[in-house]
């Protein structure tokens, strides 16, 4: 007789249970090893905790999501769900969620709100939009929307309302990188990480800033497929830790490194002459251009030994075309970030790492179609966007948030007094927060639609609660999963909407119908999906069955016998259009100014447990990242008399913040780093309010000269120990 049997038999368990939480449990003959199957329903959806849209299966019991699991049939995300994906539950059931429409009662940002009914809220939103249009024309209203499957309805609304002024999050993130690759290859490529034999990871952190399938494929490539991974990063990131080689490059010198790679590849004839002759434009100009950029020159700039630079150039070339300088995603770093990324693209172009296994890939066919409409014409309107013509190569449909903000503040060339924001948080993500507050104060009326009281919502006039991704019906969306797939996804509600939340589509429809624009929203999401999938009619049924529809489209050789969408119709090492516009047709390296004595360059970045401001209030993720700290090099900290965990003040030309120092060898002595998303203004973000420091309060608001993408690595700060 074991002790277990004895206690069970003697009834002591029951005695033990008296007064305990399991009043009856004690008598039950429990076999913990073989419990019953859970009573959940399984429903497909797509994650929304970052932009990746990984496939998931929601386990729902009694109308409540108990667990989010990966969809094993979802190739783009390789059947995984990261910590943030798992923490989606904490976002949906966050007690801080917006529950009903709120109208500002006190001063802007004071946090006094009045609950109002939906009808009143929509009447007011529509009436204010009409007023703004009457006073300032349609372009006097700005629309800003984040990455979301409903965002297209904000764009549609703006267009039928008559405003050209639509901005997205992308000009605080990736537009300069997209520009650079578009202006080299004629399109923005995907990376065939899985089949690559040599990956140069520069200015990207793919094992922490997860991109599917790249992050997962990167591990498969280096672990199973013999791919070599080299990382250049001023921080010893987890990507750096898992790389074959890591160099703590001096921030702002990546271009010197790339031009030196090109120097070695050209001078040692390491490229395929046939590829360069037939498919590229400008090898003569590039050859002349890279002569001064020797490995020795780059070594001085980057702090990487010259012989290593030359060796890496040879290794990268030897592995070509199954090699790549990884394009990266967020490129909002310097004022010449388009030109920096052009240098990345040029090395890939030179080596022919394109349209073949292991290199960069062209976009694949997904099969979704747009849903066209004829927007009305307004005679009384401005001629163009407010940020038009201020930088030479802005993406019109993304705009530049920073250029727009400066223009709004200066009424240049015309006033904007109304602002509608959906599911993005410029107050928490755009550098120089004080200017965003000024911009808010300039507005007659601001409406924000979101699931939580973000800092942008906190400063608004009217706040409308939207549904989370697990509560609503979404249109179809096409996804490119690199070599993994080209696919289509949709979302259907897996639970009933919480509180009084409504989907953005219904909100737009409600406002439109109050402004005689109802005809542009006279459909249901289901009907919209039918229109989107009119050429792949089987897709909707397949998505119901598998949670995803795959289009079996071509992966490689898409450009066989096809011209490139550039002026020369070839891969442009030398960009002719830039030449015509007076821009550098080949990237010219300007050494970055070093931080002045006793100052540091601030860099931003991610870890795998946060998505900027949108997860700082997530209770589950908060357990992993309870706040942000200032990464400060051990030696630098000693010089300043700062110990690990000390409270420090960080001061920049535009702001001051306090947070705890994290003294570490994982960062260069001239650089500091902190995570974004913390120290929110909004007290209705109870885990991030008053917690850590706001990086966008500190960052200066420089931007890329070509695209207007924010440059977030150009701010120098002082760090001082706070005396307790």
């Amino acid at each position, binding site marked *: 007789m*074991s*002790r*277990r*049997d*004895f*206690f069970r038999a*003697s009834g*002591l*368990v029951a*005695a*033990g249970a008296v*007064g*305990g*939480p*399991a009043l009856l*449990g004690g008598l*039950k003959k429990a076999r*913990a*090893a*073989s*419990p019953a*199957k*859970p009573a*959940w329903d399984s429903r497909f959806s797509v994650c929304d905790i970052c932009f990746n849209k990984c496939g998931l299966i929601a386990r729902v019991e009694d109308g409540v999501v*108990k*667990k989010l*699991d*990966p969809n094993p049939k979802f190739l783009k995300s390789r059947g*995984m*769900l*990261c*910590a*943030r*994906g*798992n*923490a989606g*539950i904490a976002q949906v059931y966050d007690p801080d969620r917006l529950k009903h429409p709120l109208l500002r009662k006190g001063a802007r940002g004071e946090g006094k709100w009045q609950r109002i009914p939906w009808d009143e809220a929509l009447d007011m939103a529509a009436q204010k939009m009409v007023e703004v249009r009457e006073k300032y024309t349609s372009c006097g209203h700005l629309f800003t929307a984040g990455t979301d499957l409903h965002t297209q309805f904000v764009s549609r609304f703006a267009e039928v309302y008559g405003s050209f002024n639509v901005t997205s999050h992308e000009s605080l993130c990736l537009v300069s990188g997209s520009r650079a690759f578009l202006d080299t290859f004629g399109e923005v490529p995907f990376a065939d990480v899985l089949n690559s034999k040599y990956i140069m990871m520069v200015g990207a952190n793919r*094992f*922490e800033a*997860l991109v599917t399938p790249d*992050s*997962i494929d990167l*591990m498969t490539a280096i*672990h199973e497929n013999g791919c070599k991974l080299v990382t250049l990063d001023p921080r*010893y990131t*987890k990507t750096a*830790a*898992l*790389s*074959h*080689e*890591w*160099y703590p490059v001096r921030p702002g010198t990546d271009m010197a490194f790339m031009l030196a790679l090109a120097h070695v590849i050209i001078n040692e004839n390491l490229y395929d002459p046939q590829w360069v002759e037939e498919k590229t434009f400008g090898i003569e100009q590039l050859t002349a251009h890279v002569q001064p950029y020797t490995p020795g020159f780059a070594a001085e700039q980057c702090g990487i030994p010259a012989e290593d630079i030359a060796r890496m150039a040879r290794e990268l070339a030897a592995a070509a075309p199954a090699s790549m300088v990884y394009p990266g995603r967020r490129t909002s770093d310097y004022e010449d970030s388009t030109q920096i990324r052009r240098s990345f693209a040029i090395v890939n172009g030179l080596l022919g790492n394109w349209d073949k296994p292991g290199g960069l890939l062209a976009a694949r066919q997904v099969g979704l179609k747009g849903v066209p409409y004829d927007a009305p014409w307004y005679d009384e309107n401005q001629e163009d966007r407010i940020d038009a013509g201020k930088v030479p190569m802005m993406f019109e449909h993304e705009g530049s948030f920073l250029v727009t903000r400066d223009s709004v503040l200066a009424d240049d060339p015309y006033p904007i007094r109304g602002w509608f924001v959906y599911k993005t948080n410029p107050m928490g993500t755009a550098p120089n927060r004080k200017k965003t507050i000024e911009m808010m104060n300039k507005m007659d009326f601001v409406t924000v639609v979101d699931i939580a009281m973000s800092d942008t919502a906190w400063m608004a006039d009217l706040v409308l609660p939207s549904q989370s991704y697990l509560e609503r019906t979404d249109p179809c969306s096409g996804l490119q999963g690199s070599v993994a797939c080209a696919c289509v996804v949709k979302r259907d509600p897996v639970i009933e909407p919480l509180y009084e939340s409504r989907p953005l589509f219904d909100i737009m429809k409600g406002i439109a119908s109050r402004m005689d624009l109802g005809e542009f929203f006279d459909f249901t999401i289901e009907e919209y999906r039918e229109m989107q999938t009119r050429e792949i009619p089987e897709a909707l049924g397949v998505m119901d069955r598998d949670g995803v529809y795959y289009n079996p489209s071509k992966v490689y050789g898409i450009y066989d016998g096809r011209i490139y969408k550039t002026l020369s119709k070839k891969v442009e090492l030398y960009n002719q259009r830039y030449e015509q516009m007076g821009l550098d047709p080949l990237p010219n390296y300007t050494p970055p100014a070093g931080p002045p004595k006793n100052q540091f360059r601030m860099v931003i970045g991610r870890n*795998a*447990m946060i998505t900027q401001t949108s997860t700082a209030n997530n*209770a*589950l*993720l908060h357990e*992993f990242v309870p706040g942000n700290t200032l990464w400060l090099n051990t030696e630098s900290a000693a010089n300043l008399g700062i110990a690990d965990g000390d409270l420090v003040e960080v001061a920049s030309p535009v702001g001051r913040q306090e947070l705890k120092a994290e003294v570490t*060898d994982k960062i260069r002595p001239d650089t500091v780093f902190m995570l974004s998303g913390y120290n929110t203004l909004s007290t209705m973000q109870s885990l991030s309010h008053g917690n850590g420091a706001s990086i966008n309060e500190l960052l200066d608001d420089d931007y890329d000269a070509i695209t207007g993408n924010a440059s977030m690595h150009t701010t120098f700060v002082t760090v001082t120990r706070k005396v307790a």
Partner: protein
Amino acid sequence: MAQQFAMVIDAAKCIDCKGCVAACKVANEVPEGQFRNWIKPTDVPVRPGPSNGTAKFQPGACMHCENPTCVAACPTGATYRDEETGIVVIDEALCIGCGNCIPACPYDARYRNAVTRKADKCNYCPERRAAGLPPACVDTCPTKARVFGDINDPQSAAGILFRKNKERLARVAAKTDTKPNMYYIGDPGPGAWGREAVVPASMVAMKESAPFIKGIVALSGLGVLAMLGRQLFAGSGSDHKEDTDA
């Protein structure tokens, strides 16, 4: 041969994303600030240039040991090794939350659940397995660094890996050798970090003399009630030191 459920882990594939930890917390409703599983980073000097190639992050959890010291430390038999599956199980109905088992685990895989106030640890997600799903941590892992299954079954994913890498399999050593059933392929990263198992002397004595003093065992029931009382009045904090002398 009986089953032996186990994990075969390739620590070199772990990117420390915490997906497994988050998935476990949700699947098992693990209270705030408590964890059933972990990823331990290797503390190596930061050096630019070529890497020395050692694994940097080590996923782990209860190792479902062959010689589970936690079982020896349990006064009620709530913690036992299931003969059928080789899984070390906590029968919640029998657990009195005395906390003896917590220091008895050299890998600190156990904690007293702040809500149920009972011993808690990884149980390989039995509800999920009943539904035909892998444990939550295994299912969610981006790089599939964690592989779970019956290592005695040559057809199972874990069994295949186990056999294929037989020569290179490593275990994380502890000062008390409990023969863990958590196998790492090649370099497990952080080395022999397991401490000594701390089993209350009274429990050891009781276990050794058990065959002839069943009557005394009955008396220990009174002690159990006393411990239960103490548990009910004790704070719910995770500090278990007060229990080590029980």
